[in-house]
């Protein structure tokens, strides 16, 4: 197991380096530097700016400095557009917000999705099943950018129950809509996956044996069926995590929650490459780490897997 984790890390680190180098080269290839404006700067000023940000050095040297700064000092460098702010400042101000509603949405999607799926599987072909399947089919076509305006329309404009945007760590009423908007479509997918895998497990031999032994039904489901049925769900958690982070961009834009998604889109519109790269690398790191955790969890739950 330990060797497996080490081996996985040995792949993860080069992947990250590749991501950094790739985005750095992309930035270098892009037409128009960070300081090209509608009115051209005098060449002397431009040269000074390039020197200040180290852009006059050879490419390999720039990459080295950038990687070194990230790895050793966890420093993503300065923003190219707002000279008084560093990329770290922007990330530090937005990340706690994204993390809060992202985690909650993630947990909500899993809890609701798994419950729906299990209920549908246990009462297969009853109205409960049809209801759960109906909900999950309906929710599947409601991605975050569709849910967000619908929620605002209903809860802010019509019923005036929830604030239509903004963020406060102390007032959960600001959290409700971002979480629902983010979670809905993944909740649906998780419900579908849970249902079909639970149906398969419930039809398998070890469940029949457990029932034949006279184990009460709730114990059969909780102790014997749920664990193997969760395996496909767990392997789906990696993609869900990525999509949630991606979805946070829409949430931050639409609800003005002020997370890193907002910083990302702003920097995209401003061509602030340094911020974009910093956020991309941060998100990439999180993704890779999360996938690692998911794989370990999978190996831990599934006794058939040996490493």
């Amino acid at each position, binding site marked *: 197991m330990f060797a497996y984790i080490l081996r996985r890390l040995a*792949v*993860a680190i080069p*992947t990250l380096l*590749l*991501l950094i180098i790739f*985005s750095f080269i*992309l*930035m270098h*290839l*892009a*037409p128009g530097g960070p300081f090209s404006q509608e009115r051209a700067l005098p060449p002397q000023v431009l040269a000074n700016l390039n020197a200040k940000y180290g852009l006059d050095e050879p490419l390999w040297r720039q990459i080295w400095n950038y990687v070194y700064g990230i790895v050793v000092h966890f420093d993503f460098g300065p923003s190219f557009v707002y000279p008084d702010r560093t990329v770290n400042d922007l990330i530090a101000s937005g990340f706690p917000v994204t993390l809060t509603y992202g985690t909650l949405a993630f947990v909500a999607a899993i809890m609701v999705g798994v419950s729906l799926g299990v209920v549908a599987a246990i009462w297969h072909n009853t109205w409960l099943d049809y209801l759960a399947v109906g909900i999950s*089919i309906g929710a*599947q*076509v*409601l*991605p975050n*950018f*569709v849910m*967000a*305006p*619908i929620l*605002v*329309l209903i809860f802010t*404009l019509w019923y005036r129950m929830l604030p239509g945007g903004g963020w406060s760590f102390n007032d959960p009423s600001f959290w409700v809509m971002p979480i629902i908007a983010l979670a809905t479509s993944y909740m649906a997918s998780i419900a579908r996956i849970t249902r079909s895998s639970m149906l398969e497990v419930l039809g398998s031999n070890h469940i029949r044996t457990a029932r034949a032994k006279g184990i009460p039904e709730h114990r059969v489901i909780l102790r014997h069926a749920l664990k193997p049925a969760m395996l496909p769900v767990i392997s789906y958690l990696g993609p869900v995590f*990525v999509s949630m*982070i*991606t979805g946070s*961009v*829409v949430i931050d*834009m*639409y609800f003005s929650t002020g997370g890193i998604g907002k910083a*990302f*889109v702003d920097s*995209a*519109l401003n*061509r602030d*490459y340094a911020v*974009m*790269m910093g*956020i*991309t690398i941060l*998100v*990439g790191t999180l*993704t*890779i780490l999360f*996938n690692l955790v998911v794989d370990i969890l999978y190996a831990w739950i599934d006794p058939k897997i040996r490493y």
Partner: protein
Amino acid sequence: MQSLASTMVEHEVKGRSPWADARKRFVRNKAAMFGLCILIFVVLFAIFGNWIAVWSNEELDFNVMGQVATMGQPSIENGHYFGTDDLGRDLFSRTVQGTQISLMVGVVGAAIAVIAGTLYGATAGYIGGRTDQLMMRAVDILMSIPYMFVLILLLVMFGRSIAMLFLGIGLISWLDMSRIVRGQTLSLKNREFIEAARATGVSTWKIIIRHIVPNLLGVVAVYATLLVPLMILTESFISFLGLGVQEPLTSWGALISEGSKTMAYGTLWQLAFPLFFFVITLFGFFFVGDGLRDALDPKER
């Protein structure tokens, strides 16, 4: 009674090919047929919508401009079937245009994925060994990258054009496809007919193109239908953020974004109509995709 009669007739006529079998299963699937009807409706709307439209998508209606909330609602009389947007442009023809672009992005993105993913996956799976490991490891690495961020990075750096959007979406969409195709190829490559081809000296490329790929079509068709809505979702996501399709062009994502920004002024139709087409199209594709999977791969249920 009728079903008995029809089965008896069929027995008399001839044996059924697997494709005919699949078609029958598909036609019997109500959800899939319903989805197909929806898709046909949306496609007809995209193709012939402009014939019905009274206004073009660029014309400004000066009677409405400035008082969209009161004058711009959907009405048959002034020709704005879906109302107008807040500039006074006809939302019906804007929706037609958005539908065309969104469908196009979805289909082209899926087509790139199908071609690139099938060839890549089939090659990796058929050649096997170290080549396979290397190729699939590359896919693993690419998949662990948060592609939406990279896609936006690409769009910002190289200009927000439709061509770039196609390229960007195509670049990331083939990864899943290549994995699925590789898995299928692995199970195909030791079959007798492949062995026979190899024994008679057919070259590797020819075996892949002539013998492996045609046998993958079922899986590829299923996955491609499920891929189109994902591509539409991706494009709409980016356009919703204002980073995708740019004015005067539009797409569902851009229209939904516009509608969601103006709904506070009471112009709900600006959100409702694009949203309606977006949602029913996704429904249609998901139903048809599920139906195809059940039809082509009955044991997978």
